[in-house]
C-alpha cells in the first residue's frame, strides 16, 4: 500500500504546485498550498503504517501548523483586499521597484 499512497500523494502535490504557479486569485493559491500540505500528510500516514505510529504525530502537528497558517494567511488577504480592493496577485506588486 506504501507505493500507491506515495503515488497519490505525489500526484496531489503536483496538482497543488500547478495551482500555485498558474492561478492569480490569492485565495485559490492559498487553497493550493493547503492541498500540498494534505498531500504530504498522506505520505506521512503511509510511512507511519510501515515504520510506526510516530508519523501520525507529525500529521497532527502539520494540521496544527496548517490551521495557524490559514488564520494568519487569510487575515493577510483581508488586509490586502482592504488596501488594494483586489486579490489578484498580478496587481499586488508593492515590492516591485
Amino acid at each position, binding site marked *: *500500500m506504501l*507505493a*500507491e*499512497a*506515495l*503515488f*497519490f500523494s*505525489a*500526484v*496531489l*502535490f*503536483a*496538482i497543488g*504546485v*500547478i*495551482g500555485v*504557479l*498558474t*492561478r*492569480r486569485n490569492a*485565495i*485559490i493559491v*492559498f*487553497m*493550493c498550498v*493547503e*492541498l500540498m500540505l*494534505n498531500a504530504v500528510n498522506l505520505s506521512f*500516514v503511509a510511512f*507511519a*503504517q*510501515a*515504520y*510506526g*505510529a510516530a508519523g*501520525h*504525530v507529525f*500529521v*497532527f*502537528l502539520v*494540521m496544527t*501548523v*496548517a*490551521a*495557524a*497558517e*490559514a*488564520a*494568519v494567511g*487569510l*487575515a*493577510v*488577504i*483581508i*488586509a490586502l*483586499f*482592504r488596501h488594494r480592493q*483586489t*486579490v*489578484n496577485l498580478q496587481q499586488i506588486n508593492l515590492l516591485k521597484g
Partner: protein
Amino acid sequence: MEATLPLFYKFHFYLFGLFAVAAAITFVTRKSPVAAAVWLVVTMFSLAAMYVLLDAHFIGVIQVIVYAGAIMVVFLFVIMLLNLGDAEAITDARGGWWKIAAGAVALAFLAQVAVLARFEAPAALRLPAGRVAEQVAEQGAIAPIAGPLFTRYLLAFEVTSVLLLVAVVGAVVLGKQRRHTDAR
C-alpha cells in the same frame, strides 16, 4: 475472508485515491473560488477515507473535523466577506507559458517520485506487516498517537501551543480595522 479483505481494501484505496485526484484537478481548474473550495472539501474527504484505510482512524477523523470542517469554513467565510463569489475577472489563470512551466515542474516532481517509490528502507527500520493495525486493535485508535505525542514529542506539542497563540494574535492584529492610521 483472509484473501478477500485485502482486495476489498485495495479497491477502496484506489477508488478514493482516484476521487481525490479527480476532485483536486477539478478544484484547480474552477474559475469561481466557492466552487474551488467545495471541490477541495471533496478531496479532503477522500483523503480522510484513505487515512482510515491506512490504519490511521484518528487522523481520518481529525482530517474531517479540522480540515474539511474548520479550515475550509474559514476559507468560505473569507470568500463571502470579500464578495468574490462571482469574480470571474480576478480568477483567470495565467498565460500559456506559465501553464507550460507549471506542467514541467509537475512532471519533474512526478519523475522524482517515480525514482523515490523504488526506495527500500533498511530492514531494521521496517515494522512487521500489520503492526500498526495490531496496535490499533489492542490499544484503540488514539492511544498509539497520544503516547508518543505526550512523551517523546512533548516539546513539539508545547511549542505548537505558542504557535497557535501567535497565530491568533497575528490574525487579530492583521484583521483589525485601522481608522486613524495617522493618529498613532
